[in-house]
């Protein structure tokens, strides 16, 4: 039996609402469409899922730290383009090229951090500027036509298949577990939450909030870059428009997963659930042959419902008073 203590703890979790909606939709979609609940369909969902989930994970961590990144969609293109140029034009080893592609992403994250923190510009504006700049860089450095993925490039370690699953899902699970561990079990995780909730107080208590936020900006960009590399390896091509509009989907996933725009609230698990919700909605629209334009409507409705439900469950949890013996 769940006692009050456990119910309160459960309702207080930021991802609770997303999880409740997920289970509800899972049941509904199973009845709506016979093809929804079968392993083959879920393998289809999971094959593209890690790419968006990784971006949402980075955004979630940054949102917990109290900031925001609109440039992730462009970074999603920059990293694979840099990687492919280095492989094809400069004949560098693919691992070195990937690392340099991720370094480019990290550099963009660093610039976002400096502009936001040192110049005290809202991250919404700073990263909006970077969204355009990074996209432009992606087009300029590739001349509009990035090199294609070489046929002999080893991609199995990243996007190959293990049974029906893609390897990328294991990368996602591994990265999410490490992020969850850092957020919940380490001093740095504690500082991320503290910085996001009350930056001035965190600073006055000796936390280097600049270092905390800069690390989160860099992490967010690197995750977006890595996700872009995964996608380009999966579809075996790179285009300059890769990741266009992805930033809003990733932010939607983070918010649906319980991350607060005010900072200080969110979880790695929430980012995964939030993204999964978006993925199954997209999937059911395709399976049911509904006009794809309804996807944006569904995402919008989901955001509003999830945030309302989040507020309600949080208020309910706050109202539960525990007795001494609990």
């Amino acid at each position: 039996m769940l006692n009050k203590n456990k119910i309160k703890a459960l309702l207080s979790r930021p991802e609770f609402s997303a999880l409740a909606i997920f289970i509800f939709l899972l049941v509904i979609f199973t009845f709506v469409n016979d093809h929804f609940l079968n392993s083959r369909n879920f393998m289809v969902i999971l094959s593209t899922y890690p790419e968006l989930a990784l971006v949402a994970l980075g955004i979630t961590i940054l949102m917990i730290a109290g900031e925001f990144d609109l440039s992730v969609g462009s970074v999603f293109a920059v990293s694979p383009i840099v990687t492919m140029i280095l492989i094809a034009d400069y004949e560098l080893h693919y691992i070195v090229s990937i690392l340099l592609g991720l370094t480019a992403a990290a550099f963009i994250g660093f610039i976002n951090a400096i502009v936001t923190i040192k110049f005290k510009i809202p991250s919404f504006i700073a990263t909006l500027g970077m969204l355009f700049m990074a996209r432009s860089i992606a087009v300029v450095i590739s001349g509009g036509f990035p090199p294609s993925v070489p046929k002999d490039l080893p991609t199995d370690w990243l996007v190959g298949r293990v049974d029906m699953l893609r390897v990328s899902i294991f990368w996602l699970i591994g990265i999410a577990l490490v992020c969850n561990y850092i957020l919940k079990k380490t001093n740095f995780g504690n500082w991320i939450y503290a910085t996001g909730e009350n930056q001035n107080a965190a600073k006055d208590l000796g936390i280097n909030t600049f270092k905390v936020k800069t690390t989160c900006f860099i992490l967010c960009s690197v995750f977006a870059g890595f996700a872009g590399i995964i996608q380009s390896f999966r579809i075996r091509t790179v285009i300059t428009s890769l990741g266009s509009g992805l930033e809003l989907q990733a932010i939607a996933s983070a918010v649906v997963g319980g991350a607060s725009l005010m900072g200080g609230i969110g979880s790695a698990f929430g980012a995964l659930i939030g993204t999964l919700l978006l993925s199954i909605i997209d999937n059911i629209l395709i399976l049911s042959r509904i006009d794809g334009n309804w996807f944006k409507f569904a995402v919008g409705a989901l955001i509003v419902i999830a945030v309302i439900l989040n507020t309600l469950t949080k208020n309910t949890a706050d109202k539960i008073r525990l007795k001494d013996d609990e």
Partner: protein
Amino acid sequence: MNNIPRDLITCNQLNKWYGNLHALKNVNLKINKGEVIGLIGDNGAGKSTLIKIMCGVHSLDKGEIYFEGKKVNIKNPKIAMDLGIETIHQYNTMFQEMSIARNVFIGREPKKFGFKSLALLDEEKMNKESMKAINEVGLDLRSPHIPVKELSGGEKQGVSIARSMYFKSKMLILDEPTNHLSVKETLKVLEYVKSLSSMGIGSIFISHNLYHVHEIADRIVGMARGEKVCDMSKEDTTVNELIKLIG
């Protein structure tokens, strides 16, 4: 016993400018171990600027600070905390969504293993020690896991004080610590500040409530327009005189 130096902190000719505003003008202040200083003054008098310099939130433009006889450069809050200067700020420095244990140890978490900036938390120690620290300041909270948002104003202030005490502070700065507290909670805080003296902890108590200041301070320092306008023993003045002084 008498050979132990009594000087805790000595501030010489402190100056601070905010742009063209000369917020602190040649302020001298000396605090001994175990002494409670009541710092009074109207809004904008320079009280907050003075204590923010002492606790490393603001940097000093001109002047010197000596702590236990040694010259120090308190350029950030971490340095102040390492010296043993703890501050309970006027504004809220609690993290509402975090547990009591995490609030007590924030920024100085006990670690099991790892690096300075990335280490596994020793949660068992945090839970146990935070409850011990809270009990020592006379609070009775049932669990270290309770989010701070569920505590009353007085309990939150108690957690702030427990945080300062746990880290063996040598000097405690309390900036309006009784704001927004009930009468009962206020009395508890005042009692606590009085008890710091017997532990040899020097303290600065800032309050607009001159009755509170007069009750607990050994010495009263008044400020106006960025300058120190008085520095006298409690016995040499009355609350009415203090009201006239800063009124």
